């Protein structure tokens, strides 16, 4: 599958943005962190920035961005539409909660309700993002039960890393937060291993014999291409640059996405709270974003669409 930059950016950035939003809302409502207005402004500003940049970049990759509003109409059947609707709805309670926090320093009472609603909205939005991919029966590597949990775990993991950097910078760090990062990152890594194991050993893939319905006559292979130049179907669904580097990219994704951030988090735990800890926590968040970009790219590169069977692929 062709990995559009807009989609890679959208899913990784908005994932982190929603993860950060979830933690700010939940810990803010629980009163575990102070409602310092500057921290609220920075935290929500960054969260909204990530989410909005992601949404805008995915809207601008459309053939007709000016019609994007139509995408909220088909929530009855389409996961993409549901994602759009939830993303827009979530702005409302999240915005109100942020206003209460920043202008009045109040995260209780009715403001707390907004906070909880925003956290629920953010979880559901990321869930829909995962389901857009998981619901596609045409791509066995995506039509896999690990996909949506991984989208959720990685969104919360990257969000937790940014959250940790933020609270440490404001002198409100707690080992609880760093251990939260370590737990969610570890869970994410385990899930990623589970996913890779599942797609590597999964059920037998289809062959050109299945695609053409001619399997009972013998082994089917492409004899002559249908056209001399690649068409849209081949460029979009048949894209496989990087698939041959999948093993290397898995290692890079693991290192940058999980192992280095885990190591940095453990160093933060071992340290006295202070500027150095905040810098390490910030580094952990930044490196994990790079890892998530690699992971997302790989998610596309390893996806084999069944239509490629008509174009010479031996299995998909």
């Amino acid at each position, binding site marked *: 599958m062709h990995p559009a930059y807009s989609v890679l950016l959208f899913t990784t950035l908005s994932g982190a943005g929603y993860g950060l939003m979830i933690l700010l809302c939940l810990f803010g409502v629980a009163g575990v962190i102070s409602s310092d207005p500057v921290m609220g402004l920075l935290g929500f500003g960054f969260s909204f920035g990530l989410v909005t940049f992601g949404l805008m970049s995915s809207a601008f990759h459309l053939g007709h961005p000016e019609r994007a509003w139509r995408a909220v109409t088909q929530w009855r059947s389409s996961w993409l539409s549901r994602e759009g609707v939830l993303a827009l709805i979530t702005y409302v309670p999240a915005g109100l909660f942020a206003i209460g926090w920043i202008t009045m320093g109040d995260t209780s009472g009715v403001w707390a309700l907004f906070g909880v609603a925003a956290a629920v909205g953010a979880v559901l939005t990321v869930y829909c993002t995962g389901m857009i991919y998981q619901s596609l029966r045409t791509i066995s590597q995506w039509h896999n039960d690990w996909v949506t949990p991984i989208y959720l775990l990685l969104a919360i993991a990257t969000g937790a890393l940014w959250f940790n950097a933020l609270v440490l910078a404001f002198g409100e760090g707690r080992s609880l937060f760093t251990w939260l990062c370590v737990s969610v990152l570890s869970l994410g890594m385990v899930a990623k291993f589970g996913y890779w194991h599942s797609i590597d050993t999964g059920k037998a893939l289809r062959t050109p014999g299945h695609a053409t319905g001619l399997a009972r006559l013998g082994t*089917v292979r492409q004899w002559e291409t249908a056209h001399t130049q690649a068409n*849209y179907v081949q460029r979009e669904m048949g894209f496989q640059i990087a698939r041959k580097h999948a093993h290397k990219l898995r290692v890079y994704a693991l290192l940058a996405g999980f192992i280095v951030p885990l190591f940095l988090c453990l160093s933060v735990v071992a340290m006295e709270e202070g500027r150095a800890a905040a810098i390490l926590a910030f580094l952990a968040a930044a490196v994990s974003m790079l890892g998530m970009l690699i992971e997302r790219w790989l998610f596309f590169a390893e996806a084999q*669409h069944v*239509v490629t069977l*008509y174009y010479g692929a031996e299995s998909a």
Partner: protein
Amino acid sequence: MTSLPESSSGKKLGLVIDLDTCVGCQACAVSCKEWNTTGHTAPLTDQNPYGAEATGVWLNRIHSYEVSPGTHGSGGMTVNFPRSCLHCEEPECVTVCPTGASYKRAEDGIVLVNPDTCIGCKLCSWACPYGAREYDEDDGVMKKCTLCVDRIYNENLEPEDRQPACVRACPTGARHFGDLGDPESAVSTLVRERGGFDLMPGLGYRPVNKYLPPRERRVGADTELAALKPADTGPGAAGDRVFRWLDRALSR
């Protein structure tokens, strides 16, 4: 509305494609392009059409496959394989559409895209296992086979022309158009008699279009072929034996 129509008329218009008689001439593909670049989906744009890297939107693609070994153990068989929208009964390309631009008509089951509301997100093309949808880079919207909806009901055309352009163009009668929801229609009879099949039925899209398998090759065809081989063994005329000895000598 991208939810599928709840009640349908029972009419399922579609194509039956005979893989036995298709000769892979591409006439249907050309005719499709010609009609549809001025019809419902107009234009079907091309990029760099006269350059080295010509590319563009076509709604019908004709592949060629080799099947080996043949059912009679005698080498392979070449099968020409036209591929276009199958107007599925469970078209996930429709249900994934976030805008309602993709829809399946309740009255005849044809799957269409409204080019005025399509946002060009391409998700429908990801959801189609059959590669039936091609994105128009210039138009910014998705294009697909309309089953020539602008021909089949068009009373300005002669009755014999009220069928899809590909069917009208096929010189070998390998493409048949009709109502696959009516068990007594000519196309349904053809599917029954020839063992017509669905492409990738396991995916659950329930295609309306059917494919007819290549017929069994003639029994004894191999023996006849063998008879045409040069006689290089066994007794023959004296002259033949000389040539055979020369052949062996030169082979050393």
